[in-house]
């Protein structure tokens, strides 16, 4: 039995009066690939953003790797150095070249030398098949290319866990595949992956488990083939039949 990379126990989150996360209990093993889905507003982003401390929760306990997520800034920055995140809107730094986008975080976060960081960056960009654009600025490349740069930028830090929040939903259909392809390769390695997505094909191909959320709660957790065809709850069955058709 592999050890757990992420453990949430009794997680609660309130936005003022709004109850965004209700008693979340979830354990994700190291090396596992977990896809999170559910209707809009169900708290998927909130949950995944709690995992690297971008969002604070109100109650409960959340452990990531050997750290506890909380107010302790030193712990948070230790987590963020080992947990990468890819966003829906890429969030590349527009005032830097693609290469510098990948080099600077290594220098600032890990204290790597520029030379080593540059080598690493080129290597990751090549792996994402985007190295020929290294000297360009983010505004000069397509959405799919931007997302692959964002992924390379994260991978440069050698993370053990990757969080994805709808990485393909801001992309044109023809670019979705190129991003999913590289994510699929990643999932086959021993990286721990938590991915919010509605790409059911991707989930079927690589997910060990699918987490279905609604109204701030985890309704069901099951392997993809089970949950897509034989979900226990009516709400999950309705959801999956609507996204798969």
């Amino acid at each position, binding site marked *: 039995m592999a050890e757990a990379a992420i453990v949430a126990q009794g997680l609660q989150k309130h936005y003022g009066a709004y109850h965004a996360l209700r008693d979340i209990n979830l354990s994700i093993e190291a090396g596992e690939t977990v896809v999170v889905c559910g209707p809009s507003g169900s708290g998927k982003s909130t949950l995944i953003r709690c995992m*690297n401390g*971008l969002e604070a929760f109100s109650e409960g306990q959340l452990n990531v790797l050997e750290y506890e997520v909380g107010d302790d800034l030193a712990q948070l*920055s230790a987590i*963020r*150095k080992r*947990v*990468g*995140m890819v*966003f829906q*809107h*890429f*969030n*590349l*730094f*527009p*005032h830097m070249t693609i290469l510098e986008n990948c080099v*600077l*975080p290594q220098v*600032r*976060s*890990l204290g790597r030398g520029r030379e080593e960081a540059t080598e690493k960056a080129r290597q990751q960009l090549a792996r994402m098949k985007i190295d020929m654009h290294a000297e*360009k*600025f*983010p*505004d*000069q490349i397509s959405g799919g290319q931007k997302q692959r740069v*964002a992924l390379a*930028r*994260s991978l440069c*830090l050698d993370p053990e866990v990757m969080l994805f929040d709808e990485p393909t939903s801001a992309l044109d259909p023809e670019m979705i595949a190129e991003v999913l392809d590289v994510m699929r390769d990643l999932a086959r390695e021993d990286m721990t992956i938590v991915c919010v997505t509605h790409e059911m094909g991707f989930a079927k191909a690589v997910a060990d488990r699918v987490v279905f959320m609604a109204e701030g709660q985890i309704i069901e957790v099951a392997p993809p083939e089970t949950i897509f065809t034989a979900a226990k709850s009516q709400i999950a069955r309705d959801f999956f039949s609507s996204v798969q058709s």
Partner: protein
Amino acid sequence: MTDVVTPSEHLPPPQNTWGEWIWKSFFGSVSNTLFTLAFGAFVVWVLSSVAGWMVLDAVWRVEDRDLCGHGAGACWAVIEDRWRLIFFGLYPYEEQWRSSIACLALALTIVLSCVPKFWSVRRLPVLWLAGFSVFVALMRGGFAELTLVTTEQWGGLSLTLFIFASVFLIGMPLAVVFALARRSSFPVIAKGMGVFIDVVRSLPLLAILFSAAVVIPILVPDWLQSSKLARVIVAFAVFFAAYQAEIIRAGLQSLSEGQEEAALSLGMPYWSVILDILMPQAFRNTLPSTINQAVITFKETSIVTVIGFFEIMASGRAVIGTDEWGAQFVEIYVFLGLVYFVFVFGLSRYGAWLEKRMRVGHG
């Protein structure tokens, strides 16, 4: 995601109709033609009389000064006679070479720090330290063969440049700190800074400088006393920072939240998120306002006259104050205007160039 503010562009009419368009709008109808001719004549008349006054009919040499006023044009003889007073103020006559070298050194420092090659955390401080040291050492003297000249005797263009450069240099980092405090997650700091900025902005600059020059020495113990010029510059810098902080804050607000989140989730330390990611973009997005603020500050330096400093405006007025050249006030003001114009116009053009450069490839 980028939220770069691009100025709205007025599209010119299509190329092939340019000539047609000009012809139509200037000579399209009888009234248009009449107006064009009348206005054209007016422009020619204004230009020729300005040129006549400023150049053709002007009196240039002090020897010819008797010609001044008798139907002749501008009497530039006053400048030849008194340029030293205008440029150096009350600085001792025999030592004025020091003031001119100091002035050049400072101008060079300012120009060099506008060159992107010098924009690094290591080069800029070295450049500024060198520039200001040379300036102060030369102006003040008091070592080797150089006699001591206290700041009360500094004056003219050197003083104007020195005040502007110091205010900008102290004020800019201060503005960054103010802007960050303003968006601090501690409500006490954020609110406190907000109130402070609003108070500073609601006070007239004159009142602030006057307090720094006159009131503080009464309140502060002797051992904390600094020169009047230093106090005035610091007070001016705080005033500048209050305005510039709001500009920077607007720049920060124009960025998408994702920028900060991405940097944080890459484990970058707070200072780096601010200095490497947010500030460069905030500055880029607010460059026109920042240049505007710099221009205003340059022109406002003349206000220090009121508290007894002899910067270039005051020196110019001192020339008019004498019986000898009292009649030449127009010439003096035109000349001062030209000096200001050179600096302010240079600053504006630099701003335009910078904006264009920063847009290249990543707008």
